């Protein structure tokens, strides 16, 4: 059986196996260093075949890639993967499912903050202000000088602010944000030397995704914060921020 599998290195490196065959062969690879080495070499070989077909992409493709990358959450490294493999000679099956500790801590913190603030009942508020047009968001994300600032890990790790100083605007991007408690809303603030000013309410879409143009101009010398406020928002923050992003860093 396994003598048969050894001959699949070429078909595997060229992606010529069916899905089931590929999965079976990948299991075999974990236990067969000779095949793993051969696959490494044959993949390096196919990479040369690929490079021989090189042709330059249209110039505007980079702008699209960059804009999408800016709002795409990166995976954390799998800690200790190589270690574990060296020690046990098996793959770490748990690695793919493990929740990154940072994310877990951030989620716990956010839940804690929200449950405390949820105790305070607020007034029934108005509907969220309408988001600015997607065009403006796209313009900021694709601006040549756009820079991305992440929230402090250990605060809430998945919030990001993208700033274009040229355009004087910023976009708040989050992922995995729990919905605000009933009768509550998230509110954004731009904080400068003279204090916080309201920068808009946050609507949380499916899977906790948020892309929100900050109201008003941003110079890049501020912090952006998010608090939980009563429906309709507040003129001044009334709770501890659940997210702080420093744009000066």
């Amino acid at each position: 059986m396994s003598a048969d599998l050894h001959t699949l290195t070429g078909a595997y490196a060229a992606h010529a196996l069916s899905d089931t065959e590929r999965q079976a062969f990948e299991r075999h690879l974990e236990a067969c260093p000779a095949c793993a080495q051969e696959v490494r070499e044959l993949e390096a070989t196919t990479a040369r075949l690929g490079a021989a077909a090189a042709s330059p992409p249209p110039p505007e493709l980079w702008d699209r890639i960059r804009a999408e990358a800016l709002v795409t959450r990166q995976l954390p490294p799998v800690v200790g993967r190589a270690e574990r493999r060296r020690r046990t000679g098996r793959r770490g099956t748990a690695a793919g499912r493990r929740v990154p500790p940072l994310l877990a801590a951030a989620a716990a913190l956010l839940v804690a903050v929200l449950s405390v603030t949820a105790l305070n009942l607020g007034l029934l508020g108005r509907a969220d202000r309408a988001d600015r047009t997607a065009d403006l968001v796209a313009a900021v994300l694709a601006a040549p000088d756009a820079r991305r600032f992440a929230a402090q890990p250990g605060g809430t790790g998945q919030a990001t602010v993208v700033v274009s100083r040229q355009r004087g605007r910023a976009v708040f991007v989050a992922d995995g944000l729990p919905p605000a408690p009933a009768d509550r809303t998230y509110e954004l603030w731009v904080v400068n030397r003279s204090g916080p000013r309201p920068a808009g309410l946050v609507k949380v879409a499916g899977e906790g995704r948020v892309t929100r143009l900050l109201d008003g101009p941003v110079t890049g010398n501020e912090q952006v914060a998010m608090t939980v406020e009563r429906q309709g928002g507040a003129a001044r923050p009334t709770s501890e921020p659940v997210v702080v992003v420093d744009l000066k860093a």
Partner: protein
Amino acid sequence: MTIGTEQGTSVALTWTRREPPHRPAQAQDPAARPAGDDALERLLALVARGDERAFAELYQRVAAAVFGLVSKVVRNPAQSEEVTQEVFVELWRTAARFDPGRGTARSWIMTCAHRRAVDRVRSAERAARRDDLVGRRDQGRPYDEVAEQVETTLERERVRRSLDALTDLQREAVVLAYYGGHTHREIAELLGVPSGTVKTRLRDGLIRLRDHLGVDA
């Protein structure tokens, strides 16, 4: 209410974006390694930490290879751009998962590009049917196109000569699988040989190419 305004809480909460001094990759890239695989690995490590400049540089270095390969397999300009975009966003997303113990950065990137391209044509082809495969082969497509395209650089010339050094069956299997995106079963049908033969020819062919091209990994 305690949103940090100046030094107070803000310092503790500040996420320091400044990377350690960024050194241009060329400066560290000895001429002895024109392929720049070490540089790619270093760039990937920076990309894994969210470094956008490193991502831009990585793109500059490998975009033509990725886009060229994807275009060859996918054969539709708009879809090739889409797949190329998917590939680079995937690289950005998963850079931290790159494992140098499993191959070079270049291999990893090109393998990712090829897999995405193949996924795209396979999902498109599940709709279309087999007879179409024969039609495509009759156009004499993959190998001729490759042969046409490979004239400018030395690298292309070397790859072309290496392909020429294979037996016909090895070369057709390699070209139909890699540039054509076909499974070994489809190739078996196209060439009228058992699929076991296609598997071994693919392996023999790639091993011969490896030796001919002096690939080490």
